[in-house]
């Protein structure tokens, strides 16, 4: 269960975030107001940094215009759904959009909502509004106690808004019991209740849940849209913006983080380099890399990047246009690899990365899974 304002976390967090970006004051402020704890603050806080910089635009989204238009319209025409399910890959902006929508619902402005200036908007975006409940997975899962809390809070009358809004992120992690417990609430919520759920994919949820929600499936944003937005908002070099946009594969959140935190990109480059070197090396070197990698907190980013590299090789081996390739910088190298590797091995390698992600999610030992993957890659 989340406790409100566990201030003892904040100092720890400031320390961790400080070296990465240059505006510690703003961070501290946002952090205290957010009222969650642990990792949750970490994530939410980063997106909120982005928010601050972009203040001025209403919804502060990049791409997803149709989704914004749709949500705006439901407010204008008073056809707001009690439950909306935001789906889409990680870092695409689901919670971001859900939170903006919550702000729009709470906003006191007569004009466009959310105005981003009134007290309600500010409080909502900071996660501190009295009629907003933010639920995030507790130790990786949303549990039945959290669902009971949702039921309890939604049953209360709103305090300072026509709605009581509950944003549940990572709903795909919900336990079966918890998901079932929410069914009746989803079906017939109190008149003033709004539930905004976010999940990676509707296929991960109970069909009975999905059928009770209005779906908002967020799709990857086109590369040029992201690039333009990055240039405009961060004043970075157009070439670099295009590169970041391409690497993000449509994930807006990722692109923003990459702009704010250059170390992320560096890490990424190192990972790609490791892979490209590894292709020529024997089992011993591969096992060493697996060991190194398994020590990281989260092996997913590296595996995803590798998967993208193999995808590029696969596309090149199939004879696709160069523009589809994500890792433009390594293009010549990739092309050589594509020639020597061939289509089927490249496909198998990309698929093996997919398997690793699944295996790790099923609690397979990370190092073992990585070793299997690396050894399965064809030696050329």
């Amino acid at each position, binding site marked *: 269960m989340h406790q409100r304002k566990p201030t003892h976390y904040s100092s720890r967090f400031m320390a961790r975030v400080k070296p990465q970006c240059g505006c510690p004051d703003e961070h501290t402020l946002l952090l205290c107001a957010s009222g969650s704890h642990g990792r949750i603050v970490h994530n939410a806080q980063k997106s909120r940094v982005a928010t601050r910089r972009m203040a001025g635009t209403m919804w502060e989204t990049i791409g997803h215009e*149709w989704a914004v*238009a*749709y949500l705006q*319209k*439901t407010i204008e025409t*008073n*056809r*707001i*759904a*009690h439950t909306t399910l935001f789906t889409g*890959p*990680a870092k695409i902006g689901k919670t971001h959009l859900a939170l903006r929508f919550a702000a729009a619902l709470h906003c006191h402005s007569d004009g466009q909502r959310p105005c981003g200036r009134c007290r309600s908007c500010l409080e909502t975006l900071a996660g501190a509004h009295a009629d907003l409940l933010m639920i995030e997975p507790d130790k990786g899962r949303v549990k039945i106690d959290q*669902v009971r809390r949702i039921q309890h809070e939604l049953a209360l009358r709103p305090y300072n808004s026509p709605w009581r809004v509950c944003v549940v992120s990572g709903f795909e992690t919900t336990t079966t*019991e918890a998901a*079932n*417990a*929410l*069914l*009746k*609430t989803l*079906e*017939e919520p109190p*008149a003033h209740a709004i539930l905004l759920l976010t999940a*990676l*994919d*509707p*296929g*991960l949820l109970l*069909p*009975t849940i*999905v*059928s*009770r*929600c*209005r*779906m908002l*499936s967020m*799709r*990857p944003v*086109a590369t040029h849209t992201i690039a333009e937005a990055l240039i405009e908002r961060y004043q970075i070099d157009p070439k670099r913006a295009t590169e970041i946009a391409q690497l993000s*594969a*449509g*994930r807006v959140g990722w692109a923003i983080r990459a702009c704010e935190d250059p170390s992320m990109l560096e890490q990424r480059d190192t990972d790609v380099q490791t892979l490209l070197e590894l292709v020529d090396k024997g089992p011993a070197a591969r096992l060493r890399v697996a060991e190194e990698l398994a020590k990281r907190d989260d092996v997913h980013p590296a595996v*995803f990047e590798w*998967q*993208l590299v193999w*995808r590029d090789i*696969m596309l090149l081996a*199939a*004879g*696709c*246009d160069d523009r*589809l390739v994500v890792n433009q910088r390594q293009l010549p190298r990739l092309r050589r690899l594509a020639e020597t590797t061939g*289509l089927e091995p490249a*496909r198998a390698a*990309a*698929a093996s990365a*997919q398997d690793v*992600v*699944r295996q790790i999610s099923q609690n397979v030992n990370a190092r073992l899974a990585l070793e299997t993957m690396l050894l399965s890659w064809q030696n050329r």
Partner: protein
Amino acid sequence: MTSQALYNRWRGQTFDDILGQEHITATLRNQIRVGRIGHAYLFTGVRGTGKTSTARILAKAVNCVGDTDAPPCNECHICRTITTGRSLDLIEIDAASNRGIDEIRELRERVSFVPQETRYKVYVIDEVHMLTKEAFNALLKTLEEPPEHVIFVLCTTEAYRLPDTILSRCQRYDFRRATVQTVAVKLQRICAAEGIEITPEALDYVARRGAGSFRDAESLLDQVAAYADSVIDLEFVQRALGVVPAEAITRLISTMLHGDAAEGLTIINSAMDQGADPRQFLSEILEQLRAILLLGVGSQEQLVALGPETIVSLRSLLREEGFSGPLLLKAIRTFQTAGQELRNAVHPQLPLELALVETVLAQSKSDPMPMQPASLDSGQRRTTPGESAAPTAGQPAPLAKSTAPKGRQASPGADRADAPTAKPSPEAALEQPNRVPAPVESEPGEETADETETSASPPMTLEWVRAKWGQVVNRTAAHHPSLQGLLTDAYPVRVRDDVIRVACATSFKCDTLADAKRSAQVEGIMQQVLGAPCRIECVVGSPEERQSATTDADPRDEHLFSRAERQEGREQALRNHPAVRALEQRGAKVTRVELDDSDE
């Protein structure tokens, strides 16, 4: 300020509103008319088919005091209080949130109180599958003999999770998936009443996307209506839902057939760039592949829920060269798997791309083989007389054709080739080429034919018995389950005339199997499988030998090793035997190893 969802606003209020479930509503109506109301009902069926609504209507109907022959009247004060959810005598319990034994105990205590103002107190227990085991058991007695004034209605989507003891105490009603037409009728009503302007094609599309669930379709309509400015047409719906045009998908499928991976990948990427929903994209691809399958086996076009132009272009794909049944099945399976991978994918188009490349590769692999044109269509022709050897092979034959050439090589006599080509199984590809009786795979329909064939070939060889051993074990397991454990790690080591020596893993198993009754049972099975009478002889064998027995079954490999090498290997195996090792650890020494030559 109301924003009640369409499916709530248009929840059925009379039995007539429950569409597509006439078998249930008619029964309930009759029960109410003659006054034979059950005390416990179980409503089950997929989501959004009207379970909860029917439960509420039933509660109204049994209690209705209005002046009507067909309750509920929806006008009397009781009907109205129930509709607005204010009635004290309709108790709706969310079993998923209140799933413990304590909640059920509380319910039991209250059941005995008479209803406030109605005839019956109706307990609707929704999502009942989530009750705990203890809670279910605590409910049993109450459910069996509730007080006269109580009716239980249990609703669930997953009836298989209920204990049998619950099921047997209820009248069970299975709600069917609604047809597209029925859903469309309901949507039509809603649109007319809500003033939503929608074209018939768009309505039909929404109904179809609902997949037999009213609520899914209504949620979708709700979403589209909230987004629309003017008349909703098909194009608008497809854009709002991120659907890829059917024509692009047909092109994608044709690239698979032509083995053009580059073009296919480009189509996927451009579709994604235009904002396609990957999951939707995938399901449309599968829909078209399925359509090709159905058209290929000559089904009626009504089964295919696609536009006429699409069907025409799919038909022309069917006639194209390079098209084959196995490829189609492979494509369907591959894309089906991609759907599961889509769940965890960070790059949503990647599972699609991988599936495409896999299919294309499968296509290019099967290319060098002689491809009979339109093999799916030829399915009917193959069953004509003339080819008497394939009486049961009518359906599977054409789809399995690409593996046929392999089977042809495998069988020694080219004149017999026609029969085995009809039934190539995965194992067939793994078999050794020059084993004695070639066409001996486990196809039940063909077994009798095999038996006569095999009994004609007189000498039984060890390889052959080993190849058949899996079948022996499986059959024994089916007929004499108690022998299964004995046979799973036993294996044949020697065949001499009709005596088959079987090595068991432990001496206990060996003794048990050697028992006259048991060995007679096994011999009976072996006679059926091998087609000749035989006897078994039990010995104790080591695990290493077993491994060599299963892996080195290829007779050609046998000749690769000289006799001396083999002996050395066996000696090594004996020295490494765990029992020997254990003795060595206690100080014993192996001085001499004697090998029984007759085992060769």
